[in-house]
């Protein structure tokens, strides 16, 4: 029995580059901070930007989805659809549907469910924070995952069954005005969740006529459940949990992406997500999977990264109120210019002269090279690569995380633009360093997020032959 004519045709995860080392946190707070680095979104990342990056990795080679479901517990905006920013950044067609499913970890399953029922793109993304010294800070993680659902005939994995149970009890909660969440005594939640997990898991296997799943992944906001992730439900080949610790809505997505990275063809994956009830999603991989995995597996993304000092991390999250540079804060981006320039601001689309091919970033109506007027073709550079022509470290400029580093970037195939460097220290930069555009939040002014593109160093060799 297949409950959906749609299957996963493409998937990708995105893990930010920064890592908070437990020793660093433990020393600062005088506590035992556990083991394993925490994945930390940079100051210029939020659930929207990370979602864009995950989706950008999943979409190439596939047609544009006609629906986008964006799930997060850390929405950048309320009263405004964050999925609309993703829609713009991904350059999706104007007649596509885009909506947020925001609030709790279970919204992630809701986004997947909406996408497998009607086709479309599910993006699960979260920046999880907690008070300094809290379990959420220590054991949580930031990340995003995107799943494109299309014709089951071309899928890398199809949905065999989905079963649910819903239960109202106080385990994890947060009132909207608080940044940090609360947790009841974790063993209470554990007692509630264990039978729910067993129930939905068995029902899913039964519905699909399967005795045991090849791979089982169990995620939950409840830390006691997470600790038992590999023991609660038996699997034929592998049993695992969240790859990065609790990551809100992204948790189920990252776990599923990780399982798809590892599973062979024609194997079953049972995704169990215990959040205010429990959901079981049973999938079967197809023989297309081995050739169509995401470009950079979750495990590989986990292994990379650069350490961020704890004081810097606290400043990024707003827990430490550091003295800003003596410069005025920027103005908020204005609505009408941002709407007029959305192709540029959100999708990094410039213009190429039809007469002489000169590329203009931002787009221009009059060609800088040959003066042709209104003879331009849009050129999307979000997936382009470029080379640093020159760069500087600006110690005077306003930045949410000074100093600001800007580089003059020449893009392959034409186009030059001065852009901020993301995720990098100046010591990684040189003339010739290879870079790629990334969608980021430059700053927030008067309650408006200023989204635009920066560049990040790639792992390619620089043009002078050395590796970045």
């Amino acid at each position, binding site marked *: 029995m297949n409950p959906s004519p749609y299957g996963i045709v493409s998937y990708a995860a995105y893990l930010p580059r920064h890592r908070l080392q437990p020793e660093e946190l433990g020393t600062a707070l005088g506590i035992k901070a556990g083991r394993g680095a925490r994945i930390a979104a940079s100051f210029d990342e939020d659930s929207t930007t990370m979602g864009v990056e995950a989706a950008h990795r999943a979409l190439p080679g596939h047609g544009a989805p006609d629906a986008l479901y964006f799930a997060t517990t850390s929405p950048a905006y309320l009263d405004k659809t964050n999925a609309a920013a993703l829609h713009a950044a991904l350059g999706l067609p104007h007649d596509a549907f885009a909506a947020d499913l925001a609030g709790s970890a279970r919204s992630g399953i809701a986004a997947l469910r909406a996408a497998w029922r009607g086709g479309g793109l599910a993006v699960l993304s979260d920046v999880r924070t907690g008070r300094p010294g809290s379990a959420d800070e220590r054991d949580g993680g930031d990340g995003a995952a995107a799943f494109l659902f299309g014709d089951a005939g071309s899928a890398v994995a199809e949905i065999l069954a989905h079963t649910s149970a819903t239960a109202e009890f106080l385990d994890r909660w947060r009132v909207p005005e608080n940044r940090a969440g609360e947790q009841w005594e974790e063993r209470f939640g554990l007692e509630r969740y264990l039978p729910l997990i067993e129930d939905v898991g068995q029902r899913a296997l039964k519905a699909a006529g399967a005795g045991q799943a090849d791979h089982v992944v169990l995620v939950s906001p409840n830390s006691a459940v997470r600790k038992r992730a590999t023991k609660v439900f038996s699997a034929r080949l592998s049993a695992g949990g969240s790859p990065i610790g609790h990551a809100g809505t992204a948790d189920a997505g990252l776990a599923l992406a990780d399982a798809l990275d590892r599973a062979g063809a024609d194997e079953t994956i049972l995704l169990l997500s215990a959040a205010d009830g429990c959901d079981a999603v049973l999938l079967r991989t197809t023989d297309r999977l081995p050739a169509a995995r995401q470009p950079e597996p979750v495990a590989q993304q986990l292994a990379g990264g650069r350490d961020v000092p704890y004081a810097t991390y606290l400043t990024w999250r707003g827990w430490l109120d550091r003295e800003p540079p003596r*410069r005025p804060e*920027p103005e908020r981006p*204005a609505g009408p210019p941002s709407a007029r*320039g959305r192709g540029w601001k959100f999708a990094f689309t410039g213009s190429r002269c039809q007469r002489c091919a000169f590329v203009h970033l931002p787009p221009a109506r009059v060609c800088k090279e040959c003066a042709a007027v209104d003879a331009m073709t849009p050129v999307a550079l979000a997936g382009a690569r470029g080379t640093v022509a020159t760069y500087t*470290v600006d110690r*005077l400029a306003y930045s949410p995380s000074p100093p600001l580093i800007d580089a003059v970037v020449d893009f392959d195939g034409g186009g030059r633009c001065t852009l901020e460097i993301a995720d990098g220290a100046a010591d990684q930069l040189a003339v010739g360093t290879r870079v790629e555009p990334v969608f980021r939040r430059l700053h927030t002014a008067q309650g408006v997020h200023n989204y635009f593109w920066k560049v990040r160093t790639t792992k390619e060799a620089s043009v002078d032959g050395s590796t970045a």
Partner: protein
Amino acid sequence: MSSNGIRDRVAVVGMGCTRFGEHWDRSADDLLLDATRECLAATPALAAEDVDAYWLGTLGSGQSGMTLSRPLSLDYKPVTRVENYCATGSEAFRNACYAVASGAYDRVMAVGVEKLKDSGFSGLLRSDPPGDGTAPELSLTAPAAFSLLDPAYCDRYGVEPAAMREAMTHVAWKNHANGALNPKAQFRSAVSKEKIERAPLVAGRLGVFDCSGVSDGAACALIVRAEDALRYTDRPMYVKGLSLVAGPARGAMDPGYDYTTFPEVVRSAADAYRQAGISDPRSQISLAEVHDCFTPTEVVLMEDLGFAERGQAWKDVLDGAFQLDGRLPVNPDGGLKSFGHPVGASGLRMLYECWLQFRAEAGERQLADPTLGLTHNLGGRPGGCVSFVSVVGPDLG
């Protein structure tokens, strides 16, 4: 570029300039009044009511002609406020000159003012129209934008970074030494090269001493028809050439642009030289006041203005070519670096030094028999800017 020029058709017959610096106790109104009164007091043959029209330059210390007419209580005179980034003061002067040359007015005053030290912030503040938040100049400060010249120049001409650092230091050292001789300069002390190089970094390799002074100040010039000039002073300063270029901001988008030159400066210099009949600026110009907003800017300008061969300016700087006793003194008054940079006043301040030098009133900085002076004023940044060049001299013909 086509321009007719107004060589020897108008003359400056009086000038005023306040001390530049942190005038905590003076408003823009005070500075405007101080500069214009000084100018009129030094020009007894011309009374305030004789001035037919005014051009006022200010980047952000006021809007409209009333920024001048109100504090001076002018008697219903035409006052035009102009703005052209850091070349604002020069723009006020250029338009005032054209007003006289056109025959529309006989006596015009160009005034520039900036009150920067009331903001509470260091450096320049921008006031941009509402935008989409994507313009790089919104994030990158001026020192950072100009710091791009340094590595680019080293790369293009194979100059050792240490040698370029030495040249930049030499520019700061020279301009501070010149400013030390100038009673109206913001910074009036010589600074050792060690101190310049030990200063805290601002952007790229630029330290505090590589940056011009942020200051308050005002300056002005009285302009009349050349044939009337001797009625007002026995030593007028004649305008030989005036050029202004606003770049298309192509460099910021053009991978062919290498950040070692300002094409806008090259164009405006060529235009002004043609108007003034200058074929060899190196031998014909006696002194130059140039836009040394940051030290690498002055190095690059020496090449763009034709004072040095391409790739050689850093050497000429180190050889002392542009010192007071060099072959072509540059910024004898201390420049933006130590005289200070109250934006709207700076272009007129540059002309003020030429005025003093031609009249042999430059005190310890006095040069021997200067015959032609150049002022160069720039607004914007590498990759897209406005550039102004003037040539002035004490003699007709």
